[in-house]
């Protein structure tokens, strides 16, 4: 290998290593603890009775009926929010891409929900909007003569999906709008001259151009959505029943409602494995558009 190539490789390694090293520590140390705890009978409220439990924690966590259910809920939640945010995000970004009066303000309004704390937005939606008795939606429904919807008991998962989509739609819009800026104008012009209508420009140029940002949005959102917690905690607490208990919430229940560190650690590890599976699947689908030029 030539000196120049070696140099470049050294530069590469040197610049990447702090991040990799720290992340490695950040990952491996708690992970080691977690692996250790997952084999322990460790009830936080009863620390003296700690002891080796073998794989009991895993079998306990995996065999509980809530687990499969939570898995399903997680996938439904992640999937729906991804679809909603990407589809609406693309449409809205394209809509606000053209110049019109107040464009800047509109964009600001559009990305605002992203700045709101998850707890706060969950509270706003739960109390001010979706409350079946005194929420604004209930009022609107009554205004047109309909019975208000019991959002959190009749459509718990849908309610969560709406809230989370509202929070993450701005992120998609932000990324897409940014990306649309860098779209080659001459390509659009060429298509215009080719007689393309705005719809076909969207279909044949804009969408393909957005492939990579869509991949970024899907990846980033998926990571966060797999870990959605605050919204569920503040609105439905995983209920009614376990209609909105996703994997993180289930782990939370184990860890901090039941203070069962052993099972929670086992659950955490299972969640990591699952998340990695999802990530690998996503990477297979979207990875190409992410890493290829």
């Amino acid at each position, binding site marked *: 290998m030539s000196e120049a190539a070696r140099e*470049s490789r050294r*530069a*590469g*390694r*040197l*610049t*990447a290593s*702090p*991040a*990799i090293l720290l*992340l490695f520590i*950040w990952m491996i140390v708690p*992970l080691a*603890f977690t692996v250790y*705890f997952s084999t322990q009978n460790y009830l*936080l409220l009863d620390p003296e009775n700690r002891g080796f439990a073998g794989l009991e924690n895993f079998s306990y966590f995996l065999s509980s009926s809530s687990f499969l259910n939570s898995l399903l809920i997680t996938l439904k939640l992640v999937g729906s929010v991804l679809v909603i945010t990407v589809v609406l995000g693309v449409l809205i970004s394209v*809509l606000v891409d*053209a110049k*019109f009066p107040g464009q800047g303000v509109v*964009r*600001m309004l*559009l990305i*605002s*929900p*992203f*700045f709101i*704390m998850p*707890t*706060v937005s969950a509270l*706003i*939606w739960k109390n*001010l*909007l979706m409350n079946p008795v005194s929420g*604004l939606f*209930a009022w609107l429904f009554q205004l047109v003569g309909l019975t208000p919807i019991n959002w959190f008991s009749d459509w718990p998962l849908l309610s969560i999906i709406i809230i989370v989509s509202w929070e993450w739609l701005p992120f998609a819009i*932000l990324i897409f709008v*940014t990306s649309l*800026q*860098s779209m*080659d*104008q001459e390509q659009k012009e060429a298509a215009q001259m080719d007689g393309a209508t705005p719809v076909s420009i969207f279909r044949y140029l804009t969408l393909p151009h957005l492939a990579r940002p869509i991949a*970024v949005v899907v*990846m980033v959102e998926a*990571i966060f959505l*797999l*870990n959605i*917690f605050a919204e569920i905690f503040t609105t439905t607490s995983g209920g009614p029943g376990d209609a909105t208990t996703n*994997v993180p919430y289930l*782990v*939370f229940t184990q*860890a901090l409602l039941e203070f069962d*560190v052993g099972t*929670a650690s086992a*659950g*955490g*590890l299972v969640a*990591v494995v699952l998340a990695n599976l999802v990530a690998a699947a996503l*990477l297979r689908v979207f990875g190409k558009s992410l*890493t290829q*030029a």
Partner: protein
Amino acid sequence: MPALKQRRQIADTVRAICSWLIALIIFFPIFWMVITSFKTELGAFSMPPEFFFKPTLENYREIMEANDYLHFAWNSLVTSGGATLVGMLLAVPAAYSFAFHPTRRTQGILTWMLSTKMLPAVGVLVPIYLMARDLGLLDTRLVLVIIFALVNLPIMVWMIYTYFRDVPRDILEAARMDGATLFQEMFRVLLPVSRGGLASTALLSLILNWNEAFWSINLTTTQASPLSALVASFSSPQGLFWAKLSAISTLACAPIVLLGWGSQKQLVRGLTFGAVK
């Protein structure tokens, strides 16, 4: 052909109206929150909703009286700003390396980085708490800075990486030919050129840190508590509380919203390299 011009104008108008409508709908919950914060508790709950009312600053007064808002805000600023800074310092070189000096393992490392992000926080609370305790970091801003930075590092690396991928290699090579060292190449060419993407990433990190609640609540008590912990103390008290909750939420989110609005131009500028070629 005035007809055509007119049609175009109509189309533009329709589009503008649609955009405004959607924006207002999406923004409405926030607007409603701010409005509610100026109502009395009874007014906040009244049905049908009050649209016209006499605004009161009572809620804000009460909150300010009971809590040192500035203390919490300062903590938020220091922790999220500090973590963003640290994160950028780590992420930019890493992303640079992945984008411009890729090896066969790059792909794998990137994927692995993302997977670290997927450890559910609750699952590792106890080990982290133990470590923080043993290092004497409980209730310090430093512990939040470290954790925030590390938690968001993978996302930041990814985002910056994708932005760097869009930078034409030519201009970096030109800088190298101009005698730039690695350092100069980064700071005088690469970073200025991709500042839109960097701004997006930094803002994203700032937002995520600012809004982070789990670690904030669990690792701090009073000294280092940020605004998200303050909000948690209002999240479900007894009695009517919507107005007060709205007020504290408004207070907690206002700084970051304003910052986001201020940097919107930077964000949306994006990367245009038309000038290079």
